[in-house]
C-alpha cells in the first residue's frame, strides 16, 4: 500500500504514530500530482514549495506533540477560496492575475488545524457549471472512464478539480463549494464523498461569491469519516459573515459511528423522475434496503414543489450572480481590457474576461431583475422557494433524513450535453432543493452503473443536523462497501 492510498483518518493516525512523516506524505502527493495531473488538469496551480514548508512545520508540530486535527494532511483547495499570496482565479480569465491579500475563513481554519495545501483545484468558471467544461484554464477530465471506452468523461462540477483530485489520489481531501449541487454531483460522478453542510455552517468570507443565498462550502473526501473530519475543521461561526450560524461545531466524526437504528428515513416520491436510468432507481432501492436492514424505518414522503427547484434556482442564482459579479470591472483587481472610455473599458473587460456560460447567467440574472420583470421572475421564484422550504419543514416533522439519488445520471463525456444549457442544468435536479432550502446533504458512492461508472446516493437532513446526515451516510457506505477505483490515479 502506498501513502496516497491511505484515507485521511489513516494518514492522520500514521502521522501521529510517526509511521511516516508529513514531508514524506506531502512528497508522495507532489510526485503523484506531477505524474497524474497532466492527464486530469485537476490543479490549476501546484504550490509545492509552500506545501513542503507546511509539511516541515507539521513534522515539527508532530514531534513536539503539538498537533491539530489535520496536522500534515495534504489537501487541494478549490480555486474559489481566496488564499493569501496565492493566485486565486475562480476558474475565470478575469481573475487570472488576482493574488488575494487575505485568507478565506475556511482555509484559515484548515491551516489553523495544521493542513498542508498542495495547490488550487480547477473548477467551472465562478462555480457555474456541472461539467468543469467552463473553466478558463481548460476542462478537468474525470479519472474514471467507461468500460471499454477511453473517451474523457467529465468529473462533474463545479468542484470537478477537487473531486477528480481526491478520486485520483492526488489529494487526500479537498475543499469544495455547493451552490446547486457542486459538491455532491462531482462527488457522485467521481465515486467519492461530498457534503454540503447547512447554509451558515461554514463561513463564506473569502470565498468568491456565486449566489450568496445558496453558496456553501464543504469538503470532498474518500470516506464519510474523512469528510466529517474535514468539515469539523472547516465549519464554525465567523463574525465576518452575517449569515454565519453562531452554533457550536458538533463532533461529526463521532456521528458517523451512530448507526441508523430507529431512524425514520423518508423517500420523496417526486424524485422518481421520468426517464431516470433504471440502474439508478435500482441502486436507490438497494440503498433503502441497506438502511432498513440496519434498523431504519423507510417511509414514503412527498415534496410537491421539489420539481420546481431547478427552475427556481435558474432565476435566483443568476440574479444574485449578476450582482455579485459586477465587481469584476477591471478597476481594482483582475484583468482589464482597454477601452476608449470607462463604459467601453467595462464592456470589453467583461466580454473578454468572462466565459460564455458566465455571460449567459449574468444576462439572465440581469433580465429577471430588470424593471417590469422582477415580479414575474425573481419575486415568483422567491415565493416558490418559500414553498420548497415549507415542503422540507413539513417532511422533517416526521422523518429524520431523506435518501435520494444524487444525480439522474452517471458521468457523461466531455462535449456531451453541451448543445443545450437546460440539458446540462438537469444534472442538478436532485441536489438543488437542498440549496434552495439551506439544508445539509451528502453524496456517498453506493455502486457502479453498467459501464462501471460510480453512482452516488444523497442523504438530506434537517438544518444543522449534519450529524444524522453523517450517520446515515456512513451506514450507506458500510453497506455498499464501495471499493472501485478510477483508472487514472496515483500508483494506478
Amino acid at each position: 500500500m502506498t501513502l496516497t492510498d491511505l484515507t485521511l483518518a489513516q494518514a492522520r493516525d500514521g502521522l501521529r504514530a510517526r509511521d511516516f512523516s508529513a514531508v514524506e506524505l506531502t512528497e508522495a502527493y507532489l510526485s503523484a500530482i506531477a505524474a497524474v495531473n497532466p492527464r486530469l488538469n485537476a490543479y490549476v496551480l501546484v504550490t509545492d514549495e509552500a506545501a513542503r514548508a507546511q509539511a516541515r512545520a507539521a513534522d515539527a508540530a508532530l514531534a513536539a506533540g503539538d498537533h491539530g486535527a489535520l496536522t500534515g494532511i495534504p489537501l487541494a483547495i478549490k480555486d474559489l477560496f481566496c488564499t493569501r499570496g496565492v493566485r486565486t482565479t475562480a476558474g475565470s480569465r478575469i481573475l487570472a492575475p488576482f493574488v488575494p491579500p487575505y485568507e478565506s475563513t475556511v482555509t484559515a481554519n484548515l491551516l489553523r488545524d495544521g493542513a498542508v495545501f498542495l495547490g488550487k483545484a480547477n473548477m467551472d468558471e465562478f462555480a457555474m457549471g456541472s461539467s468543469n467544461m467552463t473553466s478558463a484554464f481548460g476542462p478537468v477530465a474525470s479519472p474514471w472512464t467507461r468500460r471499454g471506452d477511453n473517451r474523457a468523461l467529465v468529473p462533474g462540477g463545479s468542484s470537478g478539480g477537487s473531486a477528480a483530485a481526491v478520486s485520483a489520489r492526488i489529494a487526500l481531501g479537498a475543499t469544495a463549494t455547493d451552490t446547486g449541487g457542486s459538491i455532491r454531483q462531482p462527488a457522485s460522478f467521481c465515486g467519492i464523498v461530498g457534503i454540503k453542510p447547512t447554509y451558515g455552517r461554514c463561513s463564506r468570507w473569502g470565498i468568491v461569491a456565486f449566489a450568496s443565498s445558496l453558496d456553501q462550502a464543504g469538503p470532498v473526501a474518500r470516506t464519510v469519516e474523512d469528510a466529517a473530519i474535514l468539515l469539523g475543521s472547516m465549519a464554525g461561526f465567523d463574525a465576518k459573515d452575517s449569515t454565519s450560524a453562531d452554533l457550536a461545531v458538533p463532533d461529526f466524526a463521532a456521528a458517523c459511528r451512530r448507526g441508523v437504528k430507529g431512524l425514520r428515513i423518508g423517500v420523496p416520491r417526486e424524485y422518481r423522475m421520468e426517464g431516470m436510468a433504471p440502474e439508478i432507481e435500482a441502486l436507490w432501492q438497494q440503498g433503502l434496503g441497506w438502511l432498513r436492514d440496519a434498523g431504519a424505518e423507510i417511509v414514503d414522503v412527498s415534496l410537491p414543489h421539489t420539481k420546481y427547484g431547478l427552475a427556481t434556482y435558474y432565476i435566483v442564482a443568476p440574479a444574485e450572480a449578476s450582482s455579485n459579479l459586477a465587481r469584476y470591472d477591471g478597476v481594482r483587481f483582475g484583468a482589464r481590457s482597454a477601452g476608449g472610455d470607462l463604459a467601453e473599458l467595462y464592456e470589453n473587460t467583461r466580454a473578454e474576461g468572462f466565459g460564455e456560460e458566465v455571460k449567459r447567467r449574468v444576462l439572465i440574472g440581469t433580465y429577471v431583475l430588470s424593471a417590469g420583470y422582477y415580479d414575474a421572475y425573481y419575486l415568483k421564484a422567491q415565493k416558490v422557494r418559500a414553498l420548497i422550504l415549507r415542503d422540507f419543514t413539513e417532511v422533517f416533522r416526521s422523518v429524520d433524513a431523506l435518501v435520494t439519488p444524487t444525480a439522474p445520471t452517471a458521468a457523461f463525456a466531455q462535449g456531451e450535453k453541451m448543445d443545450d444549457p437546460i440539458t446540462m442544468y438537469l444534472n442538478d435536479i436532485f441536489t438543488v432543493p437542498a440549496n434552495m432550502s439551506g439544508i445539509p446533504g451528502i453524496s456517498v458512492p453506493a455502486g457502479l452503473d453498467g459501464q462501471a461508472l460510480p453512482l452516488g446516493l444523497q442523504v438530506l437532513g434537517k438544518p444543522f443536523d449534519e450529524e444524522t446526515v453523517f450517520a446515515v451516510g456512513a451506514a450507506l457506505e458500510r453497506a455498499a462497501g464501495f471499493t472501485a477505483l478510477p483508472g487514472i490515479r496515483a500508483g494506478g
Partner: protein
Amino acid sequence: MSLDPATVRRIAKLARIRVDEGQVEALRADLNSILGWIEQLNEVDTDGVAPLTGGTQMALRLREDAVNDGGMAEAVLANAPDRDGDYFAVPKVVE
C-alpha cells in the same frame, strides 16, 4: 415572455458586457429557451406566499462601531490594473 434582439442588447448594456452584433441572435435563442423553461413556475400557485429571500432565517447580527480595518492602501492597490500614486486610475470620466 420572449426576448427580442433589442432587449438582448439592452440587458447586455445594463450588465456592461459587450455583445457584438453577430452574437445577438445566438444569445437571444439561448436566453429565450432558458426563460421559456423557467416559465413552468407559472403553474405554481403562490398566492399569499411570503417570498423567501435569504439562505437562512436568523435575524441580522450587528457589529460594534470600532475602527479595526483599513490603513493598508498598498494592499488595497496592489492588484490594480492601473494606479497613480495611491489612487486607482481609469479613463477620464466626464460628469
